[in-house]
């Protein structure tokens, strides 16, 4: 089988080929390494690779298979990792200079689960520094390019994770989503990305950005692949006290059940001004498709929609300013050579080690929490967050899922928004409210613009109802499979 054929396969197809002995995990690993060698000098999805370790894991998988001890459908399948998730013995930079030399001393829970499932853990993927951004332009190690148009951003913050799947450098990747950091880059790169319900996937071993909003989730070509990866990494973890004690359904089995007619809600506030015409057209066609399957479409209202972005930036920056205090120039970060005493070692190390956006957000967060401003900003935002949650609760009495565009526009050009924080923040306008409400949501590719840029639709589900969310998404995806189209690179 040619390398081009191997890397075009979905994870489910690769898994089948491995179990039918048409392929070895070694051949799969080799094919991806060659593709990374070929395209990554331009795409720049990877910050670090350890090819020997990668091939050794593939070898171990082949050995298990030969002995009849295969660990499951992911055994022998490569999964590349956003560089904020700890893999023992590997670097974790969070795309920041301050963690330039950091090596993880332990595995994140999601990594332990993947290893238990036999997955072949791949390289470290680029992102906006500490997952703060929507374009991957904030990486201290240079941006990732969108595989569909190298002049455009891949989205962010998990831009390396989305670009790696789109450019067939990995069949599966993990990212993290605090305000849209999985779904927006999935949309801009034409792949599937899932943000699970808050508490569904352990955050142990994830470099924290905003702890009440962060979730780890999968990227893939198809919804079927995402379901397989998600069911592997989900589940209660005593090492994360916010992890929710609930059973994890077999999502991939649920996809095979016939889908009963359901109700999809279109929030009128998401379909106002500011949506690109081609995005709107693609979403309209998606709506028509769901109607043709016999599902009901209703208009709904989420009146707090325009409050989500300000609420998010108050809460996320406050949590970030607190979480990032650990990068202190003392214990496990780089230290400024200019530091003279025990006080300015912090300020100088952080001043040198953090990039602009991270500094901006830590300062904004410290301000919102500071004496005299706490009530006006942080407390007010937390109360408004309650109103946003209540909006969703009310709407979910009428509908099963909510359908929206994932992002208002296709991928934008480098530099287009990087000097205007608010315009960058607004590129997450459709994804942010679900993090505030803790709900599961995903982005599925639903077409291309005339110039060949991918477009994504977002489906938002009820808390802990990933099964129905994935099933409804799969009903569209299996007939269209836009994520299986690959860019000409």
């Amino acid at each position, binding site marked *: 089988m040619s390398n081009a054929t191997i890397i075009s396969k979905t994870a489910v197809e690769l898994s089948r080929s491995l179990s039918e002995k048409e392929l070895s995990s070694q051949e799969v690993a080799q094919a991806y390494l060659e593709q990374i060698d070929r395209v990554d000098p331009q795409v720049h999805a990877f910050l670090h690779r350890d090819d020997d370790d990668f091939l050794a894991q593939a070898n171990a998988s082949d050995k298990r298979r030969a002995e009849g001890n295969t660990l499951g459908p992911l055994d022998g399948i490569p999964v590349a990792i956003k560089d904020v998730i700890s893999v023992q013995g590997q670097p974790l930079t969070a795309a920041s200079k301050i963690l330039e030399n950091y*090596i993880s001393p332990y595995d994140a829970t999601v990594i332990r689960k993947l290893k238990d499932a036999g997955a072949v853990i791949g390289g470290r993927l680029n992102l906006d520094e500490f997952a703060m951004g929507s374009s991957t332009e904030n990486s201290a190690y240079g941006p990732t390019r969108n595989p569909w148009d190298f002049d455009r951003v891949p989205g962010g913050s998990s831009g390396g994770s989305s670009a790696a799947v789109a450019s067939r450098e990995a069949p599966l990747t993990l990212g993290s989503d605090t305000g849209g950091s999985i779904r927006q880059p999935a949309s801009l790169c034409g792949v599937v990305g899932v943000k699970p319900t*808050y508490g569904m996937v352990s955050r142990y071993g994830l470099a924290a950005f905003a702890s009440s909003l962060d979730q780890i989730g999968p990227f893939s070509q198809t919804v079927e692949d995402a379901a397989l990866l998600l069911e592997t990494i989900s589940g209660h973890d005593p090492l994360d006290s916010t992890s929710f004690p609930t059973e994890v359904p077999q999502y991939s089995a649920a996809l095979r059940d016939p889908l009963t007619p359901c109700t999809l809600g279109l929030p009128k506030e998401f379909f106002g001004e500011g949506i690109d015409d081609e995005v709107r057209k693609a979403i309209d066609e998606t709506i028509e498709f769901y109607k043709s399957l016999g599902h009901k479409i209703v208009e709904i209202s989420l009146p707090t929609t325009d409050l989500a972005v300000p609420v998010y930036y108050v809460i996320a920056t406050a949590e970030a300013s607190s979480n990032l205090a650990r990068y202190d120039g*003392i*214990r496990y970060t*780089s230290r400024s050579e200019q530091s003279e005493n*025990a006080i300015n070692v912090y*300020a100088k190390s952080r001043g040198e080690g953090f990039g602009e956006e991270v500094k901006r957000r830590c300062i*904004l967060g410290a301000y919102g929490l500071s004496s005299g401003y706490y009530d006006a900003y942080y407390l007010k935002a937390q109360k408004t967050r309650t*109103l946003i949650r209540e909006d969703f609760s009310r709407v979910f009495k009428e509908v099963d899922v909510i359908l929206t565009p994932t992002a208002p526009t296709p991928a934008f050009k480098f530099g287009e928004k990087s000097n205007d924080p608010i315009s960058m923040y607004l590129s997450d306008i459709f994804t942010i409210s679900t993090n505030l409400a803790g709900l599961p949501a995903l982005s599925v590719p639903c077409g291309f613009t005339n110039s060949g840029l991918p477009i994504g639709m977002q489906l938002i589900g009820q*808390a802990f109802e990933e099964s129905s969310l994935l099933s409804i998404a799969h009903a569209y995806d299996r007939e269209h499979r836009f994520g299986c189209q690959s860019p000409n690179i």
Partner: protein
Amino acid sequence: MSESDPNPMDIDYVSNLARIELTKEEREKFHHQLGDVLQYFEKLKEVDVDGVEPTAHAFPRFNVWDEDQAKEPFSVKQAIQNAPQSRNSQIVVPKVVED
């Protein structure tokens, strides 16, 4: 500074709270940009949240206890492997007290 000031943030004071040293250029750039962001946050002032409880977590959990069991901790070597300066299994820090 008054409540109505469009940019009430004292950037030197807050960057010190955040323990981040800024260059002169950053200070000027941020003052302008964060002023815009704070202006954008003004939207929140109009929201009526009378009697609304704040949300800290979407699905709050309380009293999450761990079994009181001894576990194998990191070795000293693992614990300090990432420290920027270490000596004799200890992290070296800048001098805290005067001679």
